[in-house]
């Protein structure tokens, strides 16, 4: 609960810091705010389930773990943004303020215990993201992305709200436990159909936010059009929060009707894996490939949702962390490399921008390689164990066929993840040495180190939650 209150306050403070003469204070201040929020988050560790705001928000160790991942990713993203110093048109105070506010929404989504809280969280997160997507005002693609994201997101929100309404109509409550109580003892009748319809509509809204197929159409365009730093934020923070919310929703309210929805989620998971992985193979732009890779990772996480057990909960937490670390590395290197050459005034985000990266920038090439290996799920990286835990949780539940499809799809993933490694090590290019700010380097190295550490010793988290 503390980080929600703190970050709401810090967001306003950040906006006002923008009026100060010195622009250099902004980045250290926001990083400090995030550290305070992280510390506040873990104050409640092991205090057991706590309820706040008239039982609308529940804080337990699972919530805190997700909050920790979200705040850590945000910290890394804020740090590699460099305070937007290189772009004279930018409005750093507004960007940081909006990101802090959107973090509040993300934390509300993680800890919600009441469907209204979920809705408010999703809205706070999304509205800030719509604005940030279009923050590159002079770029047509950024504008297009923002408009697409806004229109489709507003539609998805409508579905979600309608679903919540129907659930209220069927059960007479917004609270997760009461919906759970109703759904477990439900007779087949008109109310059960209303509940099913409400659940499906709510799932549509949530699956849109985590870009699962067939609600993924906005993802490539929006991820590509948005400034890279906000794409990173979208693909880590928003996705983690979305899956935390989905898991809490399904495990907190709908275990009683598992037989109804698990096949829906399983079908969507398979479709998402197919669309994400096969779509990614045909991309020429690295950024667009990462968008499709984001879709495919949503598919893996959905498999953990179909299992819906204690191991799968831990698998989602581990996978979100591994995915966020690798994605931040990949986008971080992309931001540096794409600035070197421009195509028509825009950064070059194609694969060929990475040609010959390893010759002059061995560190960046190494960071990129580790992150690609982790995303592809090669052993000795965190991504491997993430996939391993998810597949075992599905297999324990007895859903073997979905695991087989997922393993097949992750071999497809190797093809497109290795393309950029081949570009940076084997192809000839004229990339000069890229100047990297020390702090930027520290973040990239830290994320890479954590990826390898969790790959070597995945048991670090065992028994914590």
């Amino acid at each position, binding site marked *: 609960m503390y980080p929600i209150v703190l970050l709401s306050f810090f967001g*306003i403070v950040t*906006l*006002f810091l923008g*009026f100060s003469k010195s622009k250099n204070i902004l980045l250290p201040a926001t990083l400090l705010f995030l550290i305070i929020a992280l510390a506040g988050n873990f104050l409640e560790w092991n205090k057991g389930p706590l309820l706040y705001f008239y039982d609308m928000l529940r804080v337990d160790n699972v919530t805190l773990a997700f909050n920790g991942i979200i705040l850590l990713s945000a910290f890394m993203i804020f740090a590699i943004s460099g305070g937007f110093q290189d772009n004279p048109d930018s409005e750093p105070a507004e960007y940081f303020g909006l990101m802090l506010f959107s973090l509040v929404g993300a934390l509300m989504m993680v800890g919600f215990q009441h469907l209204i809280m979920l809705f408010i969280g999703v809205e706070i997160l999304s509205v800030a993201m719509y604005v940030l997507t279009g923050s590159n005002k002079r770029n047509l693609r950024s504008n297009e992305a923002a408009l697409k994201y806004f229109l489709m997101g507003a539609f998805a929100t409508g579905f979600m709200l309608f679903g919540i309404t129907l659930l209220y109509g069927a059960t007479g409550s917004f609270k997760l436990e009461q919906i759970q109580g109703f759904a477990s003892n439900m007779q087949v009748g*008109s109310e059960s159909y209303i509940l099913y319809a409400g659940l499906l509509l709510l799932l549509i809204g949530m699956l849109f936010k985590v870009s699962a197929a067939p609600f993924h159409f906005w993802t490539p365009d929006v991820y590509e059009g948005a400034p890279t730093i906000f794409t990173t934020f979208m693909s880590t923070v928003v996705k983690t929060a979305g899956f935390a919310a989905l898991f809490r929703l399904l495990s907190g309210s709908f275990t009683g009707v598992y037989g109804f929805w698990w096949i829906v989620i399983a079908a969507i998971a398979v479709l998402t894996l197919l669309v994400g992985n096969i779509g990614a193979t045909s991309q020429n732009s690295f950024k667009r490939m990462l968008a499709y890779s984001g879709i495919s990772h949503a598919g893996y996480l959905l498999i953990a949702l179909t299992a819906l057990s204690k191991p799968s909960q831990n698998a989602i937490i581990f996978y979100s962390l591994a995915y966020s670390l690798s994605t931040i590395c990949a986008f971080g290197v992309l931001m540096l490399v794409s600035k070197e050459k421009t195509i028509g005034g825009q950064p070059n985000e194609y694969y060929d921008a990475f040609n010959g990266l390893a010759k002059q920038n061995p560190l960046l090439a190494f960071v990129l390689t580790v992150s690609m290996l982790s995303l592809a799920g090669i052993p000795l990286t965190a991504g491997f164990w993430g996939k391993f835990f998810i597949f075992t949780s599905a297999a324990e539940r007895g859903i073997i066929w979905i695991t087989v499809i997922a393993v097949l799809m992750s071999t497809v993933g190797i093809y497109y993840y290795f393309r950029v490694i081949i570009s940076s090590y084997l192809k000839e290019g004229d990339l000069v040495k890229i100047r990297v700010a020390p702090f930027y380097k520290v973040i990239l190295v830290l994320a890479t180190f954590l990826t390898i550490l969790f790959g070597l010793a995945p048991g670090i988290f065992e028994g914590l939650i």
Partner: protein
Amino acid sequence: MNNTYLPSDYLPILVQFFLAAAFIGGTMIVTHMIGPSRKSKLKDDPFECGIESVGDARTPISVKYFLVAILFVLFDVEVIFMYPWAVNFKELGMFGFLEMLLFMALLLSGFYYVIRKGVLNWEE
């Protein structure tokens, strides 16, 4: 209170829906049938008032209008929150008062932000 509703209890809503649809459809059909219909080039103009229409209606309008309009809506809606609070002031007591103070503080900090940003500065 009666807590069980059968689908038949919602019949009046359905009837009203059909009545509304029938009214719209009916008036549209009837006016087309009984009204005289004379067509000419001038009559089919979007604005027929004797002056020839010039140019495109989609001229760019200064973004300031939108900002002021949005801010008006924002503060208007926020002030509406005070009515239910004022009505329930005695029941909510000190807690409600402090909550409202917090709300007003957030609102005023937003107002201060708007002024500092120069949004209300029309001449600029």
